[in-house]
């Protein structure tokens, strides 16, 4: 699986540098970006590739918390975690909208364990290898031939669970989600012949 993508939204250069130097020690695990351009932030959210947003909630003038509520909504819709970075007083009620809160005086250890905890469900760290394994090729071929997960499992003598996990990895590696997209990949790479591809 890919590194965990963290978007840090923080105006202060000093704080940004601090966060960067702390997280850098785990750069094999986290990919960090910074932004304070609203449009850019929104684009990143909508790309669906964001795993976690570390946001200083006082970045915006947002007295009623409208923006934070929208962000919460986005976090649910686009599947990322919302973490507050707090170093000044902030409305307790609004802080409840965050998945986790990191305080300015938290120690390094604590920051890591908080991050760890919040993404626990989302991460399964694997190597960064993007090449498709032989087994995955087999799965792609069978998917392209229109087989169900159960049929693929039977044919390859593996469990359905394993098929599903192969398919997840395939999608991550190739960036292709749909069956018809995978079919094209299979034809291009000669995993199946064009003649197998009946539903033209």
């Amino acid at each position, binding site marked *: 699986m890919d590194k965990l993508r963290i978007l840090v939204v923080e105006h202060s250069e000093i704080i940004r540098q601090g966060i960067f130097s702390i997280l850098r020690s785990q750069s094999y695990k986290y990919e960090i970006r910074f932004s304070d351009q609203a*449009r850019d932030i929104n684009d990143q959210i909508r790309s669906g590739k964001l795993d976690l947003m570390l946001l200083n909630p006082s970045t915006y003038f947002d007295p009623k918390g409208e923006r934070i509520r929208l962000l919460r909504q986005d976090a649910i819709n686009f599947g990322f975690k919302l973490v507050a970075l707090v170093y000044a007083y902030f409305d307790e009620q609004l802080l409840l909208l965050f998945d986790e809160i990191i305080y300015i005086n938290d120690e390094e250890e604590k920051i890591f364990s908080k991050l760890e905890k919040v993404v626990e469900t989302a991460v399964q760290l694997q190597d960064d290898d993007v090449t498709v394994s032989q087994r995955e090729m087999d799965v792609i071929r069978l998917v392209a031939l229109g087989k169900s997960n159960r049929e693929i499992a039977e044919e390859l003598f593996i469990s359905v669970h394993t098929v599903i996990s192969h398919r997840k990895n395939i999608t991550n590696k190739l*960036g292709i989600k749909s069956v018809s997209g995978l079919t094209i990949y299979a034809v*291009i790479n000669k995993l199946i012949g*064009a003649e197998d591809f009946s539903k033209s």
Partner: protein
Amino acid sequence: MIRKPDILSVPKKISASFDIYNYLIPSGHSEFIITGESKLVDIIQLNQRLLLVISRFGISLGFGDKSVAEVCKANGLNTSLVLLVLNVFNSHSYSVPELLPKNYIAELIQYLKNGHKYFLTSKLPYIEELINRFIEKNDNPNSYLLRNFFKEYTNEVVEHMSLEERTVFPYILGLLQQSDVEKADVRQPLTYKIDDFIDNHSNIEEKLDDLKQLLIKHFPPTPDQFFRNLILFELFDLDYDLNDHNGLEERILTPIVRTLEKEIKGNG
């Protein structure tokens, strides 16, 4: 047997004017607020994507130096709605007021329908035409797969949008009519809810992403990169535009309708 799309102003000969399509690519940030006094020509200079909004409201180009408010008046449009949509398109961080008036609904639905028409009768056929050109230029035996894939995708979009036009929009307009009826006993009970729509508002960008990935990463190198790039530019633009369109349905239309539903239920 492939039916040629009958629309299309795709130039028969390629010329330098194709470069103009570059402007459609989302250009990053445009953090300015549009007001009634803003000159239409100025805001378009700053963010060319607003051209799409303007046409969808039925405003024709050639408006001279008129301000947004003046142009709205001349076209019989609700200025505050037009401003809201312009600002939301211009900056995703524009915060939408919580309570929006129900007199936005009819015009907003017309706007969305115009968007559908644009996607279905202009944008998608145009991209299909570009794919055909790409295929002509590169005799790769597999390139027809891309065309089939795009057709499949087009069908998904057609289905998505016609569901909205057949079911969702008529429901909302009916609701609007009912809310004008004074006596509660004349009202029909609600058989559908806008949240049913939102819960099933399908993702029509998945295949689009796949196609981008195929063209960028997986389809083997082709002698012609010009049309391949052009297709990609258009796919990115379409993706962006569809996102905004669906965002309008979810973030602006739906909350107004929810309020309307409550109002009708409350009085009924």
